[in-house]
């Protein structure tokens, strides 16, 4: 039951992008085409799950016993940066077209606050355990994917729309994101 609540809360109620404002950069940056946003979602799912697993274990078995938990921010960001490099190398080998599409944005996952944010938030879960933390990470990356892909498909339609000159580009995208966030607000009572 706990797990179902975590899943629903992460995907709909406290959606990581639309209500917690983590990962806005890739949300605005790679959302102009559905295909790239799908790739980005995959990369985030992969990185976020591994990063949370590693950082959770690191925090539990290294930082806390040694009493260095104030170094959490530094260690976590280093682990994430290393992981992103790894994903980049793997993608280059396994799927060159995807690497081509994501090339510029992959290093940006390092500075994607969603990944670090989820890794830190996962430590604060009630009755936390490794399984729960990993499940939390997966749920959140699904929430990220949902928001990103829905947003990208709306943006594809926007290209054909007749938009006032001053609203073109960033403002209209922010407005769309605002309306999307408003729609997700409707899920509030769900959990």
């Amino acid at each position, binding site marked *: 039951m706990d797990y179902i609540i975590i899943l629903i809360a992460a995907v709909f109620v406290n959606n990581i992008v*639309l*209500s*917690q*404002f*983590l*990962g*806005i*950069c890739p949300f*605005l940056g790679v959302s102009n085409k559905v295909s790239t946003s799908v790739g980005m979602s995959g990369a985030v799912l992969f990185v976020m799950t591994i990063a949370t697993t590693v950082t959770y274990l690191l925090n539990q078995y290294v930082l806390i016993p040694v009493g260095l938990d*104030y*170094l*959490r*921010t*530094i260690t*976590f*960001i*280093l682990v994430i*940066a290393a992981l992103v490099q790894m994903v980049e190398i793997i993608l280059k080998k396994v799927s060159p077209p995807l690497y081509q599409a994501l090339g510029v944005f992959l*290093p*940006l996952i*390092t*500075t*994607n*606050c969603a990944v*670090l*944010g989820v890794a*830190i*938030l996962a430590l604060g879960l009630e009755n936390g355990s490794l399984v729960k933390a990993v499940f939390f990470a997966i749920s959140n990356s699904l929430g990220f994917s949902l928001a990103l892909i829905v947003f990208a498909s709306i943006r594809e339609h926007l290209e054909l729309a007749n938009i006032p000159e*001053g*609203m073109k580009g*960033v*403002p*209209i*995208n*922010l*407005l769309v*994101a*605002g*309306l999307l*966030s*408003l729609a997700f*607000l409707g899920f509030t009572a769900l959990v």
Partner: protein
Amino acid sequence: MAEMNQKQNFLKGIIKENPIFVMLLGMCPTLGVTSSAFNGLGMGVATLFVLLMSNIVVSLVKNLIPAKVRIPAFIIIIASFVTIVEMILEAFVPLLYEQLGIFIPLIVVNCIILGRAEAFASKNNVMSSIFDALGMGIGFVLALTILGSVREILGSGSLFGLTFLPETANTFILFILPPGAFIALAYLTVIFNRLTSKTT
């Protein structure tokens, strides 16, 4: 001439290359913590401090760091200062620390800071880097405070915690909720673009 350049380094961050309205960097804290003017200002100042310190250190050690590992090195420098800010805030302004919550450690991944370290401080001397950091930082503080004020005025009828509307008055609660952040920023960007395109 040199003085002119410093002035330019300083001023460009405030208007021409404003990190929020023009470059769209550091959007997460911008949207996440600006439900009131005070939070926006606090976040802005914390970021300004980290930006300034990391710009200084990066420009000092730029020749010692091999090009290949410069990004991880920058991140460590930035993360150290973020940890300092985290401790200072927790010790002296616990209320703000609680309000900003997760967004304090997340200053590490604020693209503005790494962006300035990479694009400016790693190529320029200390003085220019200080002015660059101050300009960018103040541009960021201004943007956050304005956004926070707009949201607080519309959403809770107050400014910096001072209520000026009677309690019974209806306010746009929407603006202190998440969607309000996007909508307020969208319109502020329109206004900002309008104003800057006229003056230049």
